[in-house]
């Protein structure tokens, strides 16, 4: 993607430019708000990475003005401010995503990719976990290349779990996937589906966090059955 990086700190700017280039993007780097504003008006970009602590113009002001002028390019803001209030203000000013410094370069790249996908309206990517691949478009699942037979409700649960890798999903959140099918759900339904998934995928694929919910297990170590 063609990315505009608005960053006033020399070292950080250099690092981000390099980091994003390694991920295959073309990065134009400007170092102050005024230049950024004029460049935005004259050039087109696929994405803008905007640091909020700019000299000469607060980043949020630039953002608001650009949005009022009709800018549709996705914007990801980098900020040192970590309170929820600042987050709200940032998003309300027209940002699509934000990252707090210091950030993980891989996460930054992933979010940039996500914003890129959203902007171009591309289909959901396939979800991968180890040897398991889930294809949202065709509603199919393969494990080590072999097709697995997974009924609709279990597929929905698995898809949701895979979308949230590394995060625990509450029982309520997962149960809601079952309601969508317009049927009375009994309280044990979720457990049954999880059980079935484990039978097909292996016990250590889905981890129970008692009292909280379920998550996809981490890939690093084999786990004992704790269900």
């Amino acid at each position, binding site marked *: 993607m063609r990315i505009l990086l608005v960053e006033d700190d020399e070292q950080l700017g250099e690092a981000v430019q390099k980091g994003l280039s390694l991920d295959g993007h073309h990065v134009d780097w400007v170092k102050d708000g005024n230049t950024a504003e004029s460049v935005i008006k004259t050039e087109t970009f696929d994405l803008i990475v905007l640091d909020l602590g700019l000299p000469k113009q607060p980043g949020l002001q630039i953002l608001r003005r650009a949005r009022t002028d009709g800018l549709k390019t996705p914007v990801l803001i980098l900020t040192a401010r970590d309170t929820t209030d600042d987050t709200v203000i940032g998003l309300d000013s027209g940002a699509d995503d934000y990252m707090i410094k210091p950030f993980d370069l891989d996460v930054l790249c992933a979010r940039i990719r996500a914003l890129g996908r959203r902007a171009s309206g591309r289909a959901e990517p396939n979800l991968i976990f180890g040897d398991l691949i889930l294809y949202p478009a065709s509603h199919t699942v393969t494990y080590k290349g072999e097709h697995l037979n997974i009924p609709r409700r279990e597929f929905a649960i698995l898809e949701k779990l895979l979308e949230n890798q590394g995060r625990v999903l509450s029982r309520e959140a997962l149960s809601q996937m079952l309601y969508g099918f317009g049927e009375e759900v009994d309280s044990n339904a979720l457990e049954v589906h999880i059980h079935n998934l484990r039978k097909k995928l292996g016990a250590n694929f889905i981890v129970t966090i008692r*009292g909280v919910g379920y998550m996809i297990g981490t890939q690093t170590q084999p786990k004992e059955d704790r269900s």
Partner: protein
Amino acid sequence: MLSIRKFLLINLLLSTTVATLLTAVGNYFLDQKDIQSHLDAQLSQVALSFEAIIEEELHSHRLTEIQKALNGIPQRAEEIYQSARGQDIEIRYADKFHFQVWDDKGKLLLRSTGAPTEPLSDGITGFSEKYINNQPWRVFTIYSPRTGLNIVLAERYETRSELEHRIAQDESFIMLLIYPLLGLIIWVIVGKGLSSLKRIAYEVSHRAENYLEPVNLEEVPLEIMPVIDELNKLFLRLQQAFEREKRFAADAAHELRTPLAVLRTQAQIALKTSDPVEHEQALVKVIQGVDRSTHIVQQLLTLSRLVPEVNRINNPEDVNLCKAAAEVVATLAPSALEKSIEIELIAPDENIFIRGDATSLGILIRNLVDNAIRYTPEHGRVQVHVQDLSDRTQLRVVDSGPGIPPELRTRVFERFYRIIGTKSQGSGLGLAIVYQIAALHDAEIHLRTPPNGQGLSVEIDFHKLPQT
């Protein structure tokens, strides 16, 4: 604007003026009375003296002689006056005082020079008044039964009022002298009385900006002692706050040195080594070092937001403790899993509420669970309990780590305190943060050993929400 000085001056001067005027008026009336009775007494005294002197019936011959002598009084008075010149005697003859002597047949026997020939009295014994030529006179009459004579003495009222006026004038004169003097004295006294206030005000307002020593209480007037006392206490609190701030910044800087040292060293190792595996490992450690430093910075920021001076819950709300705990466990579960630690939330009643601040409660739970995961070795377990007990609502985090020996249980809340021997990469601030947030919610913290004798149980007891 309220001014004690102006208030005092205006009111004191006003009241002295009013008092002075009232005194003058009062004096005038009282003096009148006194003068009246004094002169009346004199009048009667003279009349009685006359009566005593005129012993017998007077022959016409004798009468003529006496009358002649009486007529010569003005001249006589002038002679005495001349001879008494230089002495402070006022005997200048004045036409103020008259007498008449009548016999019982209505014939005027004697009279003073200038006395009218008509009867001065209407025959009434004692005091009376008479108008002669439109002038009022005070008249005193005696009837002497021995001699059958009427003795009449009269004094013009004008005389009396003249005296009254003279006295009033003299009094006013004195008052006019004293009055401004009094005003001046009041001015000076008020000024002096308020001078200590002025001095204190000057001293306090002319302090250097960062001079926080207490005001000397010895020279402070009793009335503003409470104010100055509080001011001194405020100075003390400020001093302590600044001290704390300084210490905090210094501590923070020191704490970051070690992780930064690690960063530098590992980076240099990466540069030095030619072994690609070592190279990669060193760089991985650099990233870990950065994460550690970031964590410390984050904790420092959190802690600085909890300083006692601004530590107040601004918008107390009903917070669902179970949900808050669930969110924390959900967030930290992955890191627990990485160490194969079994983590669970035990909250039989899914909706337990307490009153407080949602954000800081989240931070409190997060720090406790984070600590538990950090200090528990691999394959251990961490449990988070949320319970409604009879007299309190309790959050309890239990881990199977090494625990904290009882003798160190108070020290662990100190900032940057870490127990020797723990290999943790924590910031040392977690429990300090927990302490502050618990204090904010008026909650109690207890560190105990779990029933199975191993590990640590951290209990936070909150006030129960009043049941509606």
